[in-house]
C-alpha cells in the first residue's frame, strides 16, 4: 500500500509540475499582439524607427512616412495589399539591403533591389546583366575554386584572375589565401572580380583586402544603432586594412565592380581603394554597406533592416549611391550572350599597358 501511495505521489508530482508550467506559459514568457494588418504595419514601422541606421544621413523623416502610409492601412486589407504597401515603404528608403520576406508561400520575396531610373521611371534591378562567371572563366586557364566563394585562374601574359563571390568562413579564407599568395606573387598583375560579390562577413573582407595592402590605412568607420532614438549609436569603430599574409601582393591590381557588388563586397572594395596600386573598373556599386539583420511581424513575415551608418574616410557615406569606379565600363547582356566580357577585357588591356 505504501509503495502504491508513493508511486501515485511521484506520478502526481511529475505530471502536475509539467502541467502547471505548461499552463502558465503566458505568465512566464509573455504574449504576442494580435496578428492584424494594423499591428503588423505598426510593428514594421516601429522596428525601422528603433533600428534603422540611416535616417539622418539620408535625411528621412520617418514619422512623416508613417503618416503618409497609415491611412491606407486597415484590418480588412489582404496580404497582397499589405505586401505592396510595406514594399513601397522600403523603396522610399533607397536601400538595397532591405528585403521583405512574406512567408505565406504565395507572395515572392521583395528585394530592396538596386534602384534605377530609366526613362523617368523608377525600376528595381533584379536581374544582373553585366556579369557571368562562366563567361569570365572562359578567358582563363586552369581555373581553380579554392574556397566556396573564391577561385582563380591564369590569364595570358602572366596575369591572374581572382573571383570573389563572398567572404563567409573567415578561417578557410585565411588558410587558403596563405596558400595562394605565393602563386599570386609571381604574377605581373591581378584582376579581382567582385561583380558577383553580394555579401559576406566584413572582418573576412577586411582580412582578404589585407592580402593586397601596402601599409596600414583607415578605410571605414562604422556605428550601429543602440537605442530607440534616431541618434542612438554605438561609439564609431575604426576599420583598418593592413598587410595580413606573410607576403602581400602590391603589384598592379584591378578590381571589377558592378551595380550588384554590395555589402561586404563594397567594404572589401572600399578597403582596396585606399591603395594607389589598385584601380576599380566597371560600374558603380550598389550602395548598401551596413549589416542588415532580420526582424519579424506578427503574421510571421520577416524583413531586414540596415542597422548601421558606415562611412568612408572623410566621413563620406556611399549608402544609397554606391561607389563610382575609377574607369567606367559595362558589359551588356548582348556581350555576355556572345561570350564576351567587355569589362574584363578592358582590365586586361589596362594591365598590358
Amino acid at each position, binding site marked *: 500500500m505504501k509503495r502504491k501511495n508513493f508511486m501515485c505521489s511521484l506520478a502526481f508530482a511529475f505530471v502536475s509540475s509539467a502541467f502547471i508550467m505548461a499552463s502558465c506559459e503566458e505568465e512566464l514568457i509573455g504574449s504576442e499582439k494580435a496578428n492584424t494588418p494594423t499591428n503588423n504595419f505598426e510593428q514594421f514601422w516601429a522596428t525601422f524607427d528603433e533600428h534603422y541606421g540611416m535616417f539622418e544621413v539620408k535625411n528621412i523623416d520617418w514619422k512623416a512616412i508613417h503618416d503618409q502610409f497609415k491611412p491606407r492601412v486597415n484590418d480588412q486589407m489582404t496580404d497582397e495589399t499589405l505586401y505592396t504597401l510595406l514594399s513601397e515603404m522600403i523603396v522610399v528608403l533607397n536601400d538595397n539591403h532591405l528585403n521583405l520576406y512574406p512567408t505565406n*508561400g504565395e507572395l515572392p520575396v521583395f528585394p530592396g533591389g538596386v534602384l534605377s531610373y530609366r526613362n523617368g521611371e523608377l525600376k528595381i534591378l533584379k536581374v544582373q546583366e553585366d556579369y557571368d562567371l562562366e563567361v569570365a572563366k572562359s578567358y582563363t586557364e586552369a581555373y581553380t575554386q579554392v574556397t566556396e566563394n573564391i577561385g582563380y585562374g591564369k590569364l595570358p601574359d602572366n596575369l591572374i584572375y581572382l573571383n570573389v563571390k563572398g567572404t563567409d568562413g573567415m578561417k578557410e579564407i585565411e588558410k587558403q589565401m596563405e596558400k595562394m599568395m605565393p602563386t599570386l606573387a609571381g604574377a605581373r598583375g591581378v584582376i579581382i572580380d567582385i561583380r558577383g560579390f553580394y555579401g559576406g562577413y566584413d572582418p573576412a573582407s577586411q582580412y582578404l583586402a589585407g592580402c593586397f595592402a601596402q601599409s596600414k590605412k583607415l578605410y571605414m568607420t562604422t556605428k550601429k544603432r*543602440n537605442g530607440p532614438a534616431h541618434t542612438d549609436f*554605438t561609439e564609431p569603430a575604426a576599420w583598418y586594412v593592413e598587410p595580413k599574409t606573410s607576403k602581400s601582393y602590391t603589384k598592379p591590381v584591378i578590381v571589377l565592380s558592378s551595380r550588384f557588388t554590395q555589402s561586404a563586397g563594397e567594404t572589401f572594395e572600399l578597403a582596396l581603394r585606399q591603395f594607389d596600386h589598385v584601380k576599380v573598373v566597371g560600374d558603380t556599386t550598389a550602395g548598401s554597406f551596413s549589416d542588415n*539583420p532580420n*526582424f519579424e511581424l506578427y503574421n*510571421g513575415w520577416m524583413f531586414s533592416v540596415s*542597422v548601421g551608418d558606415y562611412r568612408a574616410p572623410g566621413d563620406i557615406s556611399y549608402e544609397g549611391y554606391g561607389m563610382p569606379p575609377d574607369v567606367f565600363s559595362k558589359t551588356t547582356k548582348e556581350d555576355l550572350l556572345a561570350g564576351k566580357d567587355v569589362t574584363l577585357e578592358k582590365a586586361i588591356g589596362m594591365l598590358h599597358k
Partner: protein
Amino acid sequence: MDLWTTSASNFLNRIRSLQLKSEKMKLILTLVAFLITGLALAQDYENRPWMSLENRIGLAFGIGSVTYLDKNSSPLIYQSRPKNVRLFYNLESNTFLFSFDLDVKLGNNFPKYHKDRTLYFQEEDYKGNQEDKKFPAGGSLMAGRISVGAYYKIASTQESTFKVAVGGRIMNELFYPQGWNTGGMFNSLSLSPEAVTQHRINEHHQVTAALRIPLIALLSRLPYDNTVSAPVKKQVEGFFHHSGWTGPSKFLAPALALGYNYQINTRWGAGLNYELNWYNIQTPQPMKAQSQSLLANFHHQF
C-alpha cells in the same frame, strides 16, 4: 519535522525574494513548493545508513520543450521540442556532495503560431531563364550546458534517510537558435547558490528536489543591433565581445529540478528527472524563456 518546516520556510522566502510582479506566478511556485514538501513528508523513513563514499555516473535521455520571446529581434514566441541528452557524475561522502553534468539539447525551432512558414523566391538570369523556388523557413535550436556543483550536507546523519545540502553551482549555458532570425541567443557563465534535498524512501526508492538561482553571471547576448561584425573579429569573438557581468536584475534564471531514482541493485539504478528553467533577461532588450525537460536516466554506482 522542524527541519522540513525550516526548509519550506526558506524556500518560500527565496521565492518571495524574487520579487515577481505576477501574483499568479507566486501562487504557482508556492504550490510547487508545497507539492515537493508534501511528497517528501508523505513517505516513511527507513533506518538504513548511507554509503560513506559513493560515486555515481550516468547517462540520461529525454525530451523537452523550450519556449522564448526575445524582444530584441522579434515579437514572435518561438518554440522548440528538443531531444535531450545528459551525462552526469555525482560523488557523495558523509558530509559533501559533488556533481558534474553535461547537458545537450537539439531540436527544431519555429515561431509558435507560424510553424509552416514558406518562402517564395522568383529568380531570373540575363538569359531569360526564370525559376521559382519555394522552401520552408525553418530553424534549429542547440542548447548546451556544463556545470559543476559542490554542497555541504546541513541535515543528515549516517542513519538518516533524509538529507538537505546547500552549496553552489558554476554553470555555463548556451542557447544557440539558428535560422532566419537571431533571437534567443545567449551564453551565461553563472554562479548559483543551490539547495538540494534527498529522501531515501527505502532501499529502492529515492526522490530528490533542487532549487537554484544565479546570483551573478557573465552574460553574452547579441547587442541591440543584433549583429556581431566588428573589426578583425571572427563571428564567435564578435558575439562574446558583448559580454558583461550582471546580477538578478538583468539575468534572473531560477531552476527547479525533481528526481526519482530506483535502485535496481547495489551497482545499477534508473530514474526520472524533471527540470524547469525560467529565464528573465533584461539586456539589451527583454527576453523571457522557459525550458522544461523530462529525462530517463541509467546510472552505475561504485
